[in-house]
């Protein structure tokens, strides 16, 4: 059975590195894997997404609406936007982080105060303070690896040798930080 994980966020939050590590781990574990991203214009502070699918034999590299087994959102508003893709009984992890879009900065729109409440009306999200936890570990940028940890635990992928996958994808000077981040992410979802 093919599993589908959608990672969403805002350009610059590190969704691409997180999905790269995830897909490499899945491939090493013997799964067929496909991943799809949209680059280009959306990098410039726009919404970004990485779609990861794995199983015995994966067909489409993109996830259908209403069919993601898991959505991990690096930002609250993007979690709401991604609800279209989540299965009704799918897992949702939301980083408790609010990034104003340009329309909010210029005052043309207001960032609603009750985004999480709106999500909670329909699904039970696991809200994780990944950005704050990463800051406590020493670098806010490691929030992406914390969120990767939540995927590994939620999807039951702990048996994969993530340590060596991290080693192959992360510069040595950041390795220790990212190992801690991965562990923190796994613990954050129990």
């Amino acid at each position, binding site marked *: 059975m093919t599993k589908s994980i959608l990672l969403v966020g*805002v350009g610059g939050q590190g969704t691409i590195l997180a999905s790269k590590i995830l897909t490499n781990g899945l491939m090493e574990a013997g799964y067929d894997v496909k991943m799809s991203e949209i680059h280009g214009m959306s990098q410039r502070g726009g919404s970004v997404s990485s779609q990861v699918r794995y199983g015995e034999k994966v067909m489409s*590299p993109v996830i259908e609406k209403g069919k993601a087994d898991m959505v991990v959102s690096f930002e609250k508003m993007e979690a709401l936007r991604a609800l279209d893709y989540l299965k009704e009984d799918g897992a949702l992890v939301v980083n408790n982080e609010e990034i104003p879009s340009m329309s909010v900065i210029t005052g043309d729109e207001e960032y609603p105060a009750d985004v999480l409440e709106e999500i909670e009306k329909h699904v039970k999200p696991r809200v994780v303070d990944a950005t704050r936890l990463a800051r406590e570990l020493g670098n806010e940028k490691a929030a992406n690896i914390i969120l990767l940890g939540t995927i590994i635990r939620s999807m039951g992928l702990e048996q994969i040798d993530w340590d060596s996958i991290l080693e192959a994808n992360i510069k040595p000077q950041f390795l220790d930080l990212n190992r801690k981040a991965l562990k923190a992410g796994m613990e954050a979802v129990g």
Partner: protein
Amino acid sequence: MKKLMTGDEAIARGAYEAGVSYASAYPGTPSTEILENLSTYKEIYAEWAPNEKVAMESAIGASVAGLRSMVSMKHVGMNVAADPMFTWAYMGVNGGNVIVTADEPGMFSSQNEQDNRNYAKAARIAMLEPSDSQECIDMVKAAYELGEEYDTPFIIRMTTRVCHSKSIVELSDRKEIAPKEWTKNPAKYVCLPAIARNLRVKLDERMKKLAAYSETSPFNRMEMGDKGVGVIASGVCYYYAKEVFGENASYLKLGFTNPLPAGLIREFCSKVDKVYILEENDPYIEEFVKQQGCQCVGKELFPAWGELTPDVIRECVTGTPNRTIEFDRSKLIGRAPTFCAGCPHRGLFYRLGRRKDIMISGDIGCYTLAAGKPYTAMDSTVCMGASISLGAGAQRAFNMEGKDRRVVTVLGDSTFFHTGINSLINTVYNKSNTVNIILDNRITGMTGHQDNPGTGYTAKGEETTLIKIEDLVRAIGVKHVYVINPNNLQEVDETLDKCLALTEPSVIITRWPCALKKFSKEDKAEFESLFITRNVVDPEKCIGCRKCLKAGCPAMSYDKETKKVKINRAQCVGCDVCTQVCPKDAIGKEA
């Protein structure tokens, strides 16, 4: 060895394994990474050309001279390259030649959607359509073997999802190919009318041979299952179809799509009850299937625009969309892409957008984002290089209509080298009086920082002659040339005033590096204080008027609790645009 690769990486890998020695391209999403990856192989000479026509011609030259060559471009790039391509088809290759087009169903980063399979048909060039990364490798290798055997260039038609999706590939070693001998052969390489008439006849003979090959190509295959539903699909649509119709349906997977295999299609259609044609954009296969007298369901059911992702197909076939979680959509806020913190376009467009009675003729690049809020500083965008020439036409029309309206044209450094130069020659030659702004951010920005003739470096990172834009425009005959710092708003205003008062054409070069660029040693020497400071708001002086926010910097936001503006320290690079916008002198430099 197994590896996860994007389609773009796999195209480059396939070229490497096939013994390709020469590659040229102009960057364009979603094709850019093909040449970026080609340039990482030491065995391949790879270069950025100023535009796709030049890239195509250089790759033709390398093929004529005996090497296997590749040229890659986004779909609209093929419009630029089409002139040499149509005649190249007549000539046939010496060393194999592959032309990669990356089409964009869905227009994620493009100004239009166009199905370049039509080019293959119109130019009579053999074509392959990969559906995943492994096929990218396999088809590139086959294209060189077949191309040299049948004496034809090959088009490989990619789409964004094939370019930018990763799937697992098996790597092989490179096959070294000895260069083919070049001999004088005007009957093949000099397309004079008398020669071209012969070649035109031969071209159809070649296409007939290729049509016979298409019937037996391993890239066109039937997978027979249940006879109720048969799907004919090409590219990634094959996998989308499998997702929807499952393993039990029957499939005719088409990978060699010009010429199409008529016999195979007729055979497949006769074996199944109902035929669906799944292809993105135009009814290219569908029209051919119908010409064969076969019944099929195509564009009357599936859209001819956007992506045919599995949910789209499912909704077309079943009539109902996938079940999704209902939520209050009024809570959603938009998140359009914006200029980055420190973007050197910000200062210019912030001021330009406030000018009255000008028309701003724009172009293709990050700066096209100036069309949106808060700048609304772009009135037209068509294609690469069009700003200057469209602007000249509009200015002439306004002058003829007796209106005082002035036209300001705006394009980037790389776009100017691409096709802006010809347009500026037209402006000078035909005595226009437009104000032409070249946004020189020292790199090709939008596509992710590729070198260009103005940066002083090649695609391989070697130092080369830096072509100075101000020298070039003066040589063209522009008498009024200003090089300014776009982060200095007063300089922007004063220069615009001067140029708008002229009755002759002018060029303003706004020179400051892209904030995301990896700065060269020349950048660091030329631009003092290059993003080494940060701006900070003095809460004592800030009155919360939010004027600074209208400059549209993503590092700034309004704090509802303190009723002051704050600057995100991690994002700010100290460009000082906000400092100049603030009426209360409340923004300064961090100590």
